[in-house]
């Protein structure tokens, strides 16, 4: 496994510095722990920012203003909410299965964190450029479904159970078209590594159309976007947390910091799906690089594209409504799977033509 050195050559620097006053093995451990903490910080910050953006965006789309009072333009609202959630009483209902109840938010958060490990934020900023980065993403996305099932089952609450069951059915069903849609981009790039996929989208046709995969397989992008919405439980697929039916689905019995963990994981996943779509279809960190701070611009382009897709997801959230469970399953198995298979055939044709 390549070491976590794809970064700014940090490994030697930091470990070297640390082994000045600690044993080498401890330095290595601290380095890796630090990397983990970095991911946690990244997710938390992103989630805070995204929650604020969501509330503002949805507010404006609904003819109202969103947070305004805490801090200028309401910028401190999410921080205030985080503080509020942290100081809430930790309520564990009496008859829950304590082991499952307590463990579930951590499993879901863990899977979200693992996903962030392989996101190519910039040519040199990728925590771990695994050869099978794309599959890693899918695999740990499916770990989340187990966490939701644990939460739903362990809550000793029928609403949570129904929510947990629905979420598992949904995640498992929509994994199939998602992987098939991703496969299209992988075929075009010829590699499963996230970094390689972005590198394969370098350049321009005719001087002004970037060689992004979205132009080569728009169908794949649409399918991936919809499946991404379903995997993370966003509208129109927010049945597991169907607010008007199952109070809060698997979330019903959670309050305080545990709820905050679920919430953070949800927003982290939201961003991760957008980031993945950016990597696969929108050219990742490609974009014009200016001479001022040249190492920052790819990151800026990546974030801009991912944020644009996140905005689309929020837009969808305010506009559309949720499916019924059987309509959702129909949609996955009878519509998306055939379409994604069709997409693979089309992509195979394109690959044959290009090569």
């Amino acid at each position, binding site marked *: *496994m390549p070491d976590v050195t794809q970064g700014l050559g940090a490994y030697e620097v930091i470990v070297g510095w640390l082994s000045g006053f600690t*044993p*080498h*093995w401890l330095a*290595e*451990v601290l380095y*890796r722990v630090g990397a983990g903490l970095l991911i946690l910080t990244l997710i938390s910050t992103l989630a805070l920012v995204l929650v604020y953006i969501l509330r503002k965006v949805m507010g404006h789309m609904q003819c109202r203003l969103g947070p305004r009072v805490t801090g200028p333009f309401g910028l401190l609202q999410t921080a205030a909410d985080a503080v509020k959630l942290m100081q809430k009483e930790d309520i564990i209902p009496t008859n829950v*299965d304590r*082991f*499952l109840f307590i*463990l579930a938010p951590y499993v879901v958060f863990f899977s979200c964190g693992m996903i962030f490990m392989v996101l190519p934020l910039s040519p040199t900023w990728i925590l771990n450029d*695994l*050869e*099978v980065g794309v*599959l*890693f993403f*899918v*695999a*740990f996305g*499916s*770990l989340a*479904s*187990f966490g939701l*099932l*644990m939460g739903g*089952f*362990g809550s000793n609450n029928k609403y949570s159970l129904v929510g947990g069951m629905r979420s*598992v059915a949904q995640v*498992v069903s929509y*994994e199939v078209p998602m992987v098939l849609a991703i496969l299209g981009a992988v075929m075009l790039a010829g*590699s*499963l590594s996230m970094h390689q996929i972005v590198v394969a989208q370098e350049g321009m046709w005719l001087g002004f159309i970037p060689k992004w995969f979205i132009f080569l397989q728009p169908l794949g992008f649409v399918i991936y976007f919809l499946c991404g919405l379903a995997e993370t439980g966003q509208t129109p697929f927010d049945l597991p947390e169907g607010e008007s039916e199952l109070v809060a689905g698997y979330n019903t019995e959670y309050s305080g910091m545990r709820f905050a963990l679920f919430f953070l994981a949800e927003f982290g996943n939201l961003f991760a799906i957008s980031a993945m779509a950016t990597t696969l279809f929108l050219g990742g960190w490609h974009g014009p690089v200016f001479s001022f701070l040249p190492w920052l611009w790819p990151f800026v382009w990546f974030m801009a594209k991912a944020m644009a897709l996140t905005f689309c997801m929020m837009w969808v959230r305010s506009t559309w409504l949720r499916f019924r469970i059987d309509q959702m399953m129909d949609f996955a198995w009878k519509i998306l799977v055939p379409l994604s298979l069709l997409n693979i055939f089309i992509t195979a044709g394109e690959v044959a033509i290009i090569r």
Partner: protein
Amino acid sequence: MGEPTTGKIIVFSVLTAMVIGGGLGVVFLRNVFHALVAMVVCFLGVAGVYFSLQADFLAVMQVLIYVGAVAVVIAFAVMLTRRGTMADSNRFVASGLQLAIGAAVAAGVGVALLRLICETAWQASGKFPATDVTRFLGEALLTRLPIPFEIAAVLLLVALVGAVMIALEEVHKS
């Protein structure tokens, strides 16, 4: 590869603890769902071991299939066939004489395996590339090993058709 660094030793210890602890948890935990979670921990530990052996593809497949699919199916099976309360649903937890006999048998098998592992002259095949494993695997499956691939596909198709038929039966019945 040479001598493993201390860091690698620590990581391997943690992973092995996960695997063995998870396995013991499956056998000894009273609550079936907890046993299932212990099994998931065991799977994740095994995936970690694969990662540390630079078998990325295998590790990812381990997580995707075992944790993402098999564990969930087992959870459903547990929920659908549970008798009585959940807290002591794992009825076959050994204790007393059973435990002693089981431990003795396990120890015997363990000793035999360890001797076998330590005394065999393992040889690396040298055919496996260090990078681009996926391409190698894909080509191998489709050119040199098509029959197992096709049989696996047929097996999955049979399972899928069987599942649909069982579900249809339920729909017709109700």
